[in-house]
């Protein structure tokens, strides 16, 4: 298992570098790989040639936001699956992402986002956390969370959030409406360094917190009663984890819009490759989420050139078949790898 883990991490790092080089190199202005370091250096040294600006002001921030938002989604997916003891948990599927998007749209509609860069992520966090709390209450009974109740509660609250978002869009002036549409589909257009820095900050906090709790997540796979018996403060850890997961998802959603299924796909595949131990699993999920979102963005930017598909559409095209496959396996009563 140790060797397999080393291979998996090596492969993830390689994939991250390769997809990063492609993400920066490919586009209307094509940048050969070997010129990327030079153009990057030129941009930060203050040169404003076309290649330097494309690399330093457009492609690098887009890559950074893709990697960090993907990490946030995959990490929160892995943690939600652990604390809910439920392999179908994903921030998009259970509605936390829609909750975050609603907060972001409210920030724009009320004009708060124009006053402060922190307003959008803060409001997104507040509403994402509210949705997470409601779902948790609804789906947990007698000390366990039921798969189907969780999914149904997620569907219901997602629809509600989408309906409110649509209502706000209908009542908004046209140019604001176009700005807000973006949260419904998930895209990386217009990513900037401020967003990347914000995401990096909350991701670092969350990853540290989650790694400290990774042993408790391992123990939770033996059931909540057993976890309590060996001294895990189950309720406290579940609440804290849910809040931190809602935080990183909401901040990610406030910069990229709703991107579903990254949190479902990545931890699942990695659990098969490197085992259920949460310390390596969480670290690998953070890497893998970044890779998957970057690759999805590459696909979205290249398949229908010169137009672009939103990255959320690409992840849904990957995620829906995967999700249905998991449901099918569960129906057959097979283990679903948790």
């Amino acid at each position, binding site marked *: 298992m140790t060797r397999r883990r080393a291979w998996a991490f090596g492969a993830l790092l390689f994939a991250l570098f390769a997809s990063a080089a492609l993400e920066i190199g490919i586009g209307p202005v094509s940048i050969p790989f070997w010129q990327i370091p030079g153009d990057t250096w030129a941009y930060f040294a203050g040169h404003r040639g076309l290649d330097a600006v494309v690399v330093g002001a457009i492609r690098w921030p887009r890559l950074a936001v893709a990697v960090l938002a993907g990490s946030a989604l995959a990490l929160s997916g892995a943690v939600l699956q652990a604390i809910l003891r439920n392999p179908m948990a994903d921030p998009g599927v259970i509605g936390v992402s829609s909750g975050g998007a609603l907060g972001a749209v409210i920030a724009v509609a009320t004009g708060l986002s124009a006053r402060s860069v922190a307003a959008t992520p803060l409001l997104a966090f507040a509403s994402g956390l509210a949705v997470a709390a409601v779902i948790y209450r609804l789906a947990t009974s007698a000390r366990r969370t039921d798969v189907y109740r969780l999914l149904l509660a997620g569907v219901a609250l997602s629809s509600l959030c989408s309906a409110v978002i649509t209502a706000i869009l209908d009542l908004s002036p046209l140019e604001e409406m176009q700005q807000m549409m973006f949260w419904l589909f998930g895209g990386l257009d217009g990513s900037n360094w401020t967003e990347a820095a914000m995401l990096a900050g909350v991701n670092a906090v969350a990853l540290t917190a989650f790694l*400290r709790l*990774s*042993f*408790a997540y*391992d*123990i939770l*796979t*033996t*059931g909540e*009663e*057993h976890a*309590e*018996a*060996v*001294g*895990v*403060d189950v309720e406290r850890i579940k609440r804290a984890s849910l809040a931190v997961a809602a935080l990183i998802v909401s901040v990610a959603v406030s910069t990229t819009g709703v991107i579903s299924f990254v949190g479902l796909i990545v931890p699942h595949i990695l659990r098969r490759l490197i*085992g*259920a*131990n949460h*310390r390596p699993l969480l670290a690998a999920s953070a890497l893998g989420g970044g890779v998957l979102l970057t690759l999805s963005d590459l696909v979205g930017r290249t398949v229908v050139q010169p137009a672009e598909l939103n990255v959320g559409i690409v992840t849904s095209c990957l995620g829906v078949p995967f999700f249905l496959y998991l449901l099918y396996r569960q129906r057959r009563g097979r*283990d679903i790898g*948790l």
Partner: protein
Amino acid sequence: MMDIRHLHYHRRLEDICAAFGPGEMVGLVGPNGAGKSTLLRAMAGVLRPTGGVVQVMGEAIHAREPRWRARRVAYLPQFLPDDIPFTVREFVEMGRYSHAPQGVLSRADMAAVDEALAVMGLVEHEDAPLAHLSGGERQRAAIARCLAQGAPILLLDEPIASLDIHYQLDILARLRALAEDGRLVIIALHHLELALAYCQRTICLHRGRLVADGSPGEVFTPALLRDVFRVDARPFRDPHSGALRLSVSAAIPSTPE
């Protein structure tokens, strides 16, 4: 070591009083629904009693934080999921959570895990996935996890239900050795015969009340067996071994109350 004073939990436990010391092997018996699991959970501090108190080393256990409790009382719930994705050793290491909550085990933690694996005879299986073990071996791994906690008090909820006769006797003998080593071992048991054979003390619950507390010979009277367990039975001396045994002849039909 453990002191239970006027313990109540809703209607399921009523006015339980008992005290236990080190070195005791106590069988907790009673028919289905008598409240055995509820009592063990309250003793482990997982349940907050609605009245009275369980004191461990002089402190009310439910008022302390989970890690404090786990270092003093090792509690094994009745059911263990059979799809745990870890090896035997990783599973037993989980017993050290109260000492190493981030999973970074010290040399002392490792030594405790090694000893627990050795005591339960699992050294050769330590790298096997838990899901590949037989039911009896899995139960031994669960008890090893309790031992790894390093707690002086062990509470086990039906650790031998659903095991074959070999593992039943094997596990009870190992638990008795642990009690002789100075631990307090309390096990909920359905097999009255085995309580007679392995426990020096038996406490009997019936409808949430403690109805008998003493040596198995004192507890298992024909009257108690009739009224509480609804069987026609009487204890006798085994002519071969001289041990006390039960002769159970029939279930007493339920009478409308």
